[in-house]
């Protein structure tokens, strides 16, 4: 570890914390209906409602809201699947790629609609520019917008509004896209182009290297996709090596902006939450709990990677672990990125996750295993966190013998039951899927490395997919391209494609519906004024209790699994 490395990490922490209340306040106004850009984009917004034939003021109860969100996501899924399968007949296809096989496309479509962006395919050898732009990048926007819309609806349920409804899905979706994601993405994309990220629809450029080797430079609409891939915590790379590719992430500066783009919306939503419930300290408490996990994770990964890997030490090489890391990022920026992308459910990577040291790889897994609630996905991170807050309130209530209350609203048996489903179903699914993949010969086909690393690959794969992260120990595969590039003769590993695709859909939509139900149950419930006996939920003490709840409920579930894979690797110098 170096002083320089730590300074950049601390500066990053400071900038993130400073921007959180600003964007938080901006989004608060957006969803209240008086966006700062409203005077410019207002006519566009209203025109859009007319086209859709929806009345933005017509409030929906939780069931109506959930129905709209699910139908919209199903429509998105079908459209994306069609585009990807038919890409051979669609425009903007300079390399003439045909469609990928059905099982892989099932996985990919589920992945992008579920805001996961797990990729069994390699972008530059599988996807046409049309698929990247009109298929994948559109879902980068829309899956993120659905997440934001849902969390805003849930917060309305928690807030002191007297309505029993949660707002209008179409209005929230439109506003999240038009006022938040699109303007930010446009600005960041242009900045990225200025810094060297490719943005071109030209065919690949042939070149001859100084030593006479012929090659081609693949270009594409990279920067525009990059911006929303990060902002929407999506993570699917244009190129197979994702944000490690210089055309996706050209310098230390673009890397810093990338990390900020990943975390800023999920972080700022905590401030939006504080404003919407009328007590900004409530938002800061949640931010603080998230930040505590984040900072500790960064320190551990940075220390582990600086220490180097057992393989390199046995080969007689001193210094940090540079396997699978880029020179311009070095150990510090690569470690920070690995944590940023896994606390947020982004999944973009600027280094090979599989080549991290044992402990350096265990922490990203643990980050995801919290259910992606440390900042988490846009929207989904905060609504996941709110379920843990309810659990913390419940546990505290049991300890002091009072009816649990959050923001003045009594928490009843129904909410607790829903919360238990919402917080435990996904971890259970991860463990079962991992066990199935390890125990069956179908699952073993996907594994690249042997020994505990093979187990780690599998555990990482299902943890990442079910929690909608999308980063990978990339040796784990579900797609074979014997004649790469292009899809001629390629085939999927059906077991991995279908199980993974299923995991992503369950991990996305089950908590989404559950949390809307909780919001719906709380909506319109009477708010009791705070009295001397009220347990305060905007204090560091309660923040600590929330952290403890997450550790107990989520992480403890996975300790045995972690011990079998990455922890074993971290504790031994044995080679496998």
């Amino acid at each position: 570890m170096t002083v320089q490395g730590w300074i950049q990490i601390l500066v990053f922490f400071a900038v993130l914390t400073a921007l959180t209340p600003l964007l938080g306040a901006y989004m608060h106004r957006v969803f209240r209906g008086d966006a700062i850009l409203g005077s410019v984009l207002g006519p566009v917004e209203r025109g859009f409602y007319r086209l859709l034939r929806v009345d933005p003021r017509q409030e929906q109860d939780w069931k109506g809201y959930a129905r709209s969100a699910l139908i919209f996501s199903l429509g998105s899924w079908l459209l994306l699947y069609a585009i990807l399968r038919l890409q051979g007949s669609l425009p903007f296809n300079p390399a003439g790629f045909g469609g990928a096989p059905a099982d892989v496309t099932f996985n990919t479509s589920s992945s992008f609609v579920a805001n996961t962006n797990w990729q069994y395919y390699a972008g530059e050898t599988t996807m046409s520019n049309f698929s990247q732009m009109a298929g994948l990048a559109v879902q980068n926007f829309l899956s993120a917008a659905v997440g934001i819309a849902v969390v805003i609806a849930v917060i309305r349920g928690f807030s002191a509004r007297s309505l029993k409804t949660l707002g209008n899905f179409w209005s929230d979706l439109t506003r999240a896209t038009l006022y938040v994601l699109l303007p930010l993405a446009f600005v960041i994309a242009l900045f990225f182009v200025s810094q060297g990220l490719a943005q071109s629809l030209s065919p690949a450029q042939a070149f001859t290297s100084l030593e006479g080797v012929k090659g081609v430079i693949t270009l594409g609409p990279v920067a525009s996709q990059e911006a929303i891939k990060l902002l929407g915590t999506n993570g699917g790379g244009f190129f197979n090596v994702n944000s490690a590719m210089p055309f996706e992430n050209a310098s230390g500066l673009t890397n810093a902006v990338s990390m900020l783009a990943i975390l800023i919306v999920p972080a700022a939503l905590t401030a939006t939450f504080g404003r919407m419930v009328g007590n900004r300290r409530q938002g800061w408490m949640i931010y603080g709990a998230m930040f505590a996990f984040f900072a500790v994770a960064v320190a551990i990964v940075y220390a582990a990677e600086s220490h180097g890997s057992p393989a390199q030490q046995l080969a007689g090489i001193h210094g940090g672990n540079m396997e699978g890391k880029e020179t311009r990022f070095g150990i510090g920026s690569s470690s920070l990125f690995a944590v940023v992308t896994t606390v947020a459910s982004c999944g973009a990577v600027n280094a090979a996750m599989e080549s991290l040291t044992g402990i350096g790889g265990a922490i990203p897994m643990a980050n995801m295993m919290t259910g992606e609630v440390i900042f988490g996905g846009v929207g989904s991170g905060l609504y996941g966190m709110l379920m843990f807050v309810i659990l913390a309130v419940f546990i505290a209530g049991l300890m002091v013998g009072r009816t649990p209350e959050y923001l003045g609203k009594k928490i009843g048996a129904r909410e607790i039951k829903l919360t238990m489903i919402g917080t435990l179903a996904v971890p259970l699914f991860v463990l079962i899927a991992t066990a199935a993949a390890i125990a069956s010969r179908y699952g073993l086909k996907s594994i690249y490395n042997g020994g505990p690393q093979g187990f780690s690959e599998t555990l990482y794969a299902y943890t990442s997919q079910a929690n909608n992260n999308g980063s990978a120990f990339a040796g784990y595969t579900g797609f074979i391209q014997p004649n790469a590039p292009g899809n001629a003769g390629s085939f999927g590993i059906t077991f991995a494609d279908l199980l993974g695709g299923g995991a992503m859909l369950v991990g996305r939509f089950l908590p989404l519906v559950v949390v809307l139900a909780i919001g719906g149950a709380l909506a319109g419930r009477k708010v009791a004024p705070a009295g001397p006996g009220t347990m305060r939920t905007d204090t560091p003490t309660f923040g600590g209790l929330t952290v403890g709840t997450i550790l107990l409920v989520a992480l403890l579930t996975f300790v045995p699994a972690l011990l079998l894979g990455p922890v074993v690797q971290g504790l031994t110098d044995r080679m496998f």
Partner: protein
Amino acid sequence: MKKDLTATAVGLIVLTLVLGLLYPLAVTGVGQVVFNDAANGSQIRVDGKVVGSRLLGQGFSRAEYFHSRPSQSDYNPSATFFSNAGPNGADTRDAIARYAAAYLKTEGRYDPGLTRAQIPPDAVQTSASGVDPQITVANARIQAHRIAAVRRLPLDRVNRLIDDHTDGRGLGLFGEPGVNVLELNLALDKETR
């Protein structure tokens, strides 16, 4: 229900047009006009011919050139993949040992004091992209001995060229400094032409 279906169908068409075509084409348009060189991959031309990109590393094996980091993908920028070499893999250890032996053999001739323990990790571990355009300054300083001898340049001059082609941290803060290998080699060719 019917309302949701209508809104979904119309919404997806409109949003695909706006987000999937208008947005990327707008970025492409502005990018191509304002940042033409960057938007097209920062290509480097010598005598009108494209020899690569300043952002893409390429393989060098000749003694008169600085060498890039080892690549798992043979420096191919159009089909990238990670090495996925695990931290406890015997094959990882063996690969690093092989790269280290080769590095010692190549550089040790010109820098006799060089030991295995002094080899910078970036010189013997594959990068993430396989086309890392840079090497660390420490790595370049070791190779400078070879370049100076083969090209009959003073070592000071080579080291100054390294400094000239070292990109600093972003805003002086983010990431690590690195030496751009392709640009440095082009500068060397110019110097001793």
